[in-house]
């Protein structure tokens, strides 16, 4: 039986245990964000999950964000891990910044199986590779798709809408299917 101890302040606890790994701490609208280096994410997440007093045992979400084109942040890509503690009923965000060329990160599937598909989705749509992932393949798009659609430099793929004034023009080129 696990002993339930009093809740610790996550930032203080992390700073005292792994001082080199906390790069930055931000507070916005009562949400704490801890920025860590890409190579440290597994250690930090494991510490957050297993330390009595923190026990962030539920992986809510992993989401990636692209700061293209002109970013005033440490890297082009950000990957956010939203952890939730069932016992202390609070959330925290771990954030990693990645450089533009060859964005790589170690996987968290060893800690939470739930990370499996979330990381695959980020790989597919954002092009961030998770090293050590058991099945790093496209999940949403067809496997022969080019590019990663959710990057900011990927076009939305807008097609001119047919109205009555340009119907004939577009209708001529529209590739209708045959019987």
């Amino acid at each position, binding site marked *: 039986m696990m002993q339930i101890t009093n809740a610790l302040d996550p930032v203080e606890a992390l700073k005292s245990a792994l001082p080199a790994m906390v790069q930055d701490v931000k507070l916005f609208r009562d949400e704490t964000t801890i920025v860590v280096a890409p190579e440290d994410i597994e250690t930090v997440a494991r510490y957050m999950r297993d330390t009595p007093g923190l026990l962030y045992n539920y992986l809510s979400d992993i989401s990636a964000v692209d700061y293209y084109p002109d970013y005033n942040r440490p890297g082009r890509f950000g990957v956010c891990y939203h952890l939730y503690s069932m016992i202390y009923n609070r959330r925290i965000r771990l954030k990693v910044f990645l450089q533009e060329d060859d964005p790589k990160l170690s996987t968290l599937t060893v800690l939470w199986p739930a990370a499996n598909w979330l990381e695959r989705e980020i790989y597919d749509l954002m092009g961030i590779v998770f090293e050590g992932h058991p099945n790093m393949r496209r999940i*949403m798009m067809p496997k022969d798709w080019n590019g990663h659609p959710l990057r900011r430099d990927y076009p939305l*793929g807008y097609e001119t*809408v047919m109205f009555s004034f340009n119907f004939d023009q577009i209708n001529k080129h*529209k*590739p209708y299917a045959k*019987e």
Partner: protein
Amino acid sequence: MGVVSSKLGNMGVVTTTLDTAVNWARTGAMWPLLFGLACCAIEMMATQASDYDLSRFGMELNRASPRQADLIIVAGRVVRKMAPVVRQLYDQMASPRYVIAMGDCASCSGVYNNYALVQGVDEVVPVDVYIAGCPPRPEQLIHGILTLHERIRGEHLNQWIVEGER
């Protein structure tokens, strides 16, 4: 046909053209493919369920196999990954076969003018009836189906026999 038989009395004989008889039979028992994609499929289910009762038009029997279906209702958005599947289902259906593009997404991709969607399912399969709405109300779907029936009644036997040989 009812008019004819009442005029002649109850003789058990009905005279009509073959076109009318065949088209009457085809519109009276049209089996749609049990095939739903997205939101419109839920409205399609609602159309078949108790309140709107699609079986009034002889369409209560949804076939899960495309080989047994006459009509495919593309209910929802067709994305690029799904497009080959839709085409394959269509190819498996026996002629004469019909397609209804239900909803804005199937007709012209609706609000999602983006990379993932096929911009109108008519790029993948030939469409007979388009139904607008996001999602269309069950009444709209019924109207679309009746429009298709209307169209079938105007068909001639010799046309689709030639078509079938091709």
